[in-house]
């Protein structure tokens, strides 16, 4: 599966970078010895957000299909895991995995929606996401209705969640690279560039997107499961709400759609900003992100990653002459105001 040729990836993704990443992971794993509980929990939440954003990016960035309804999978995973945890029959990790699996299986049924292109797909996902939320809100037997579910979480688990979440993040990052460098990634790039020409060389966009969605949904469902354990209380309007779906979009796009560093940066920024903005200007953050989104689309389509790249190039970093890895679905605006 791994191409031996130069599927060009920037140098920071080389074996050296991989080693660097592992070192960072190890360092983070040891961090709790030095931090207080508040930071500890904040980091856990950040790791979960990063995983969610990376998973969303597989569809939105790699496959170029922007989904405004991913919260449906997130919530499905969360509630499946929560139910299993409440039943007390399986260990936590098994419950989370079950959540991820459930989401992946449901994603298989999304095939008809995947045949839609671009904007149609995106709008359909708004509908699917909202329909799922309504369904979950009133399916009291499963989700506890609007009151949601309370999980009795052992205090040690909440602490241990730090490492589980870190491991999940590792999996998400590794998964992102694997997809990006695999033949799936190659095909997705081709589809993003020219879906018809891709078909003319034997690439079925529907199938590749099916695969990507299953992976993306599974990963985000898994994240939902851990999230449920982390908060030990979940309810449908939060887990499957439009705002939740939006948060994945924002994290990935602001960080850098289609890149791997992007969702990572975006999620970190998102969590931090939310924490601090929530204290002082509780309702400003969506508008802030809206404005950021606009600025990014118009000026720096690769978001924060793009800004970093610009900075790096100033210092002599040589990247691909073309756009950065995973050629963003978002094209940069030309210098002069061009006719659309």
């Amino acid at each position, binding site marked *: 599966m791994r191409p031996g040729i130069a599927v060009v990836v920037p140098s920071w993704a080389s074996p050296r970078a991989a080693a660097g990443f592992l070192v960072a992971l190890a360092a983070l794993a040891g961090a709790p010895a030095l931090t207080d509980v508040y930071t500890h929990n904040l980091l856990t939440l950040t790791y979960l957000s990063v995983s969610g954003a990376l998973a969303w990016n597989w569809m939105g960035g790699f496959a170029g299909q922007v989904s405004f309804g991913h919260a449906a999978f997130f919530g499905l995973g969360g509630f499946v895991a929560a139910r299993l945890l409440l039943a007390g029959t399986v260990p936590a990790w098994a419950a989370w995995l079950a959540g991820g699996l459930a989401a992946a299986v449901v994603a298989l049924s999304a095939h008809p929606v995947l045949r839609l292109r671009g904007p149609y797909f995106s709008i359909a996902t708004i509908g699917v996401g909202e329909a799922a939320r309504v369904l979950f809100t009133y399916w009291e037997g499963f989700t506890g209705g609007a009151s949601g579910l309370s999980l009795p979480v052992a205090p040690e688990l909440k602490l241990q969640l730090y490492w589980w979440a870190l491991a999940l993040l590792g999996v998400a990052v590794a998964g992102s690279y694997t997809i990006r460098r695999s033949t799936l990634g*190659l095909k997705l*790039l*081709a589809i993003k*560039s020219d879906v018809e020409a891709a078909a*003319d*060389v*034997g690439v079925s966009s529907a199938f590749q997107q099916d695969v990507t969605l299953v992976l993306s949904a599974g990963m985000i469902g898994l994240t939902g499961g851990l999230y449920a354990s982390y908060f030990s209380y979940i309810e449908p309007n939060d887990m499957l709400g439009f705002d939740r779906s939006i948060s994945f979009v924002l994290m990935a796009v602001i960080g850098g759609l289609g890149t791997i560093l992007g969702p990572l940066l975006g999620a970190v920024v998102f969590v931090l900003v939310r924490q601090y903005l929530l204290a002082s200007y509780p309702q400003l953050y969506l508008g802030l992100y809206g404005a950021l989104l606009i600025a990014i689309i118009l000026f720096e389509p690769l978001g924060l990653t793009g800004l970093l790249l610009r900075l790096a190039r100033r210092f002599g970093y040589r990247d691909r002459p073309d756009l950065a890895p995973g050629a963003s679905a978002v094209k940069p605006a030309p210098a002069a105001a061009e006719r659309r």
Partner: protein
Amino acid sequence: MPLLRVEGLTRRFGGLTAVDAVDLEVASGEILGVIGPNGAGKTTLFALIAGSLAPTSGRVWLEGELVSGLPAHRVVRAGIARTHQIVRPFQNLTVLENVHVAALAGARRKGGAPVALAEELVHTTGLSERARDYPSALTLAHRKRLELARALATSPRLLLLDEVIAGLNPAEAQQLAALIREIRARLGISIVMIEHVMPAVMSLSDRIAVLDHGKKIAEGAPAAIARDPAVIEAYLGTGAAAGAGAPP
């Protein structure tokens, strides 16, 4: 059995009949030229055969297997590949990556490693120097070769070439023509080529079919086609057929 059999292939767009009940046969190892005035429906015909467009009626068989009605990617897997009149490389992939994507299908058909297949074809089409470049950095001639390499990477039995020589200077055209001959000779691939550059299509083709207004109006050896009054008329208008001579 002919490699390709096209029977009564028709495609209508609303009131316009772009391709009108075309019958064709291509033998194994043959090069069939397709010519005709602009708007005659040649590219549409290719799109129908390759599965990019669904026919309104008519059928296409490849080696006895029905391929009409299949989506494009399935047709590729069956063994038909096409190039586009206006080249469509994947802008976000390097030359080698472009060919690699196609080689995934090709390796599935023929076996072997996609990477090796891609590298070999990049070499065969003379693009080794440019393997790591992006299409935007290539000249038109090189982009046409890339288009060709990509199509070849799918290991087709039948290759549909849509005006690959047009737009090239004489030297480049010569090279490409030689390449096409080599493809047939060495790889055993049958070729159908749409072309406006008459010297090229005349010398390369074993047979030529002529389309006008969606219909096939003539078919035969190049020399015979050149003298065919119906063909001359299609190109030059009524009355021109009176003076026999080679088409422009």
